[in-house]
């Protein structure tokens, strides 16, 4: 069974259709890269997977998305629980205006975990998971804004991991970061793959090549090609894909 399975998705912002009949499935513990020119619908698709688009007024979706075989757009889906299972990391680091510790503890607290010891353990484990522990262990009480951009982004990943999701969505997680921070996060993604199913949007072809197992190429709201990353980058079957990854595009 596929971890994520989307079938025939059409998505509309008001009158404008942003996704056309997209069908895409991802295996458990794999990394899938979503690539394509700006405005092609990558973020839109990604945000459908944790129902983040619900927040936008006047949108409509047809088709279905199954996670672990469950239709997440079914009437009686608990969206909060869904989002607990499907973590998300955003393009720009967006820590809360709270301490480093509180940032990671936030998800635990809103999910009803009150035991101080459990919270502390999970916070520490998550920060260790993103290889940030050494850098912040002495200033957990300090504001998260005192961290560098790269550290903030890793903190945001730790925050997402703390509630133990099984899927991690990342929307251009390194686009605001320097090369060193970027490579740290790429290493991290490689590590996380063992436990999580990861979907990552990226504009960086090398990055897609380095971190992902499969790659989906979107163009103008359509899924043009979806295959093993190696195949997409060496012998794509579609002309548009080839043009895009070789940079002869837009």
């Amino acid at each position, binding site marked *: 069974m596929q971890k994520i399975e989307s079938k025939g998705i059409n998505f509309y912002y008001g009158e404008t259709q942003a996704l056309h009949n997209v069908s895409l499935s991802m295996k458990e513990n794999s990394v899938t890269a979503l690539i394509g020119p700006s405005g092609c619908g990558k973020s839109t698709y990604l945000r459908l997977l944790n129902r983040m688009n619900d927040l936008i*007024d006047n949108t409509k979706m047809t088709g279905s998305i199954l996670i672990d075989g469950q239709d997440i757009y079914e009437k009686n889906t608990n969206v909060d629980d869904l989002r607990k299972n499907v973590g998300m990391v955003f393009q720009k680091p967006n820590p809360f205006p709270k301490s480093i510790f509180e940032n990671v503890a936030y*998800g635990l607290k809103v*999910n009803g975990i009150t035991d101080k010891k459990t919270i502390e353990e999970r916070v520490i484990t998550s920060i260790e998971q993103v290889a940030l522990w050494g850098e912040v262990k002495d200033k957990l009480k300090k504001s998260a804004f005192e961290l560098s951009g790269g550290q903030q982004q890793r903190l945001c990943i730790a925050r997402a991991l703390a509630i133990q999701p099984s899927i991690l969505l990342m929307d251009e997680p390194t686009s605001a970061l320097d090369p060193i921070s970027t490579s740290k996060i790429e290493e991290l993604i490689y590590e996380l793959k063992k436990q999580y199913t990861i979907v990552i949007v990226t504009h960086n072809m090398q990055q897609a090549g380095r971190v992902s197992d499969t790659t989906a190429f979107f163009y103008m709201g359509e899924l043009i090609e979806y295959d093993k990353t190696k195949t997409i980058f060496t012998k794509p079957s579609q002309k548009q894909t080839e043009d895009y990854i070789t940079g002869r595009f837009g």
Partner: protein
Amino acid sequence: MLSSAATSITVVLIVFFLFIEGAGVFSKKPIEEGFLLAVHASNPINKLEPSQVKDIFDQKITNWKQLGGKNEPIVLFRTEDITEFYSEEELGENFEYFPAKIDEYVSKTPGVIAFFSDKYKAKDFHGKELEINKIKIFEFLSGEEWFPTAQPIAQMGVKALIYGTLWVSFGAILLALPIGLAAAIYLSEIAKKRTRNILKPLIELLAGIPSVVYGFFGLVVIVPLIQSVFGLPVGETGLAGSIVLAIMALPTIITISEDAMRTTPRAMKEASLALGASHWQTIYKVVIPYSASGITAGAILGIGRAIGETMAVLMVTGNAAIMPHTLLAPLRTIPATIAAELGEAANGGLHYQSLFALGCILFLITFCINMLVELVTNRGSHKKH
């Protein structure tokens, strides 16, 4: 830079003037100028507090021993009482024998306390003029009686007015804050865009209505309502003032808090929701903390309007200068007092200056509130950066 300096200087000058004028109260005796109080020469009492004089003339104190004097009933005497003791011929056609007769009367009445004009004081007056203490700041603040034009001695206790102001304002904020906050949350987080686009301008419009109109509304709608709901003899109560003020403060509180809530970055809200927080948890844990300083600012401006508000309150609170023990009784606020009395107070007189002193108190109250807010919001914003 220059304009802000000019503004600051102007404000400082205004405050300075206010305080100079207000401080005049404490350098004056509360007895009307040109009048004096006298007792029998053998009376051991030399000095009285303003409040004691009042109690004597109100006949709450009827024997000198209550004041530490001899056991002697107090006999009140005012200038006009002289006609009870002497005939018109004895007093003279042009009252030329007034001084002599008053002197005579005081001399033969051991328990007397006489209040009369300086010009009727005989050259060789045999009585003893009483010293009256100046009004002390403490008395001014703690006195519960506000009779600034009372004879023979003005009563300048502002405690009832301060309490009246605080009660009404506090009641108003208690009503307005939860409602305003709820409305702001509804507008910024829950209402559909269309609903919001209709409601927001309407609410903003409410802020522009003159306070007299709110006063009328209060008088016609709220006052009778309170009277019938609580079965009171009069509906003009502190509660009516609080409600009217709350209604007046609401647009300010709603608009400012709502604006603040809408500045909550979308990224913050999405971060919270993406972690499985519910909509309400996100409002409570992200939106409200993020806009806390804006909400406080809205509340303060609301309170500011409430505390300084004059007209509407004047119209619905009944204006009784008595210590409020419940919001269901008439009371009187500082601004209403100033507005109602300044017109009839003689320029530069004691009453006039006491109203300025009231103004100083009002200024200090609002100043303290603002400082408090500054403290609170600073602590809030410190966390943000």
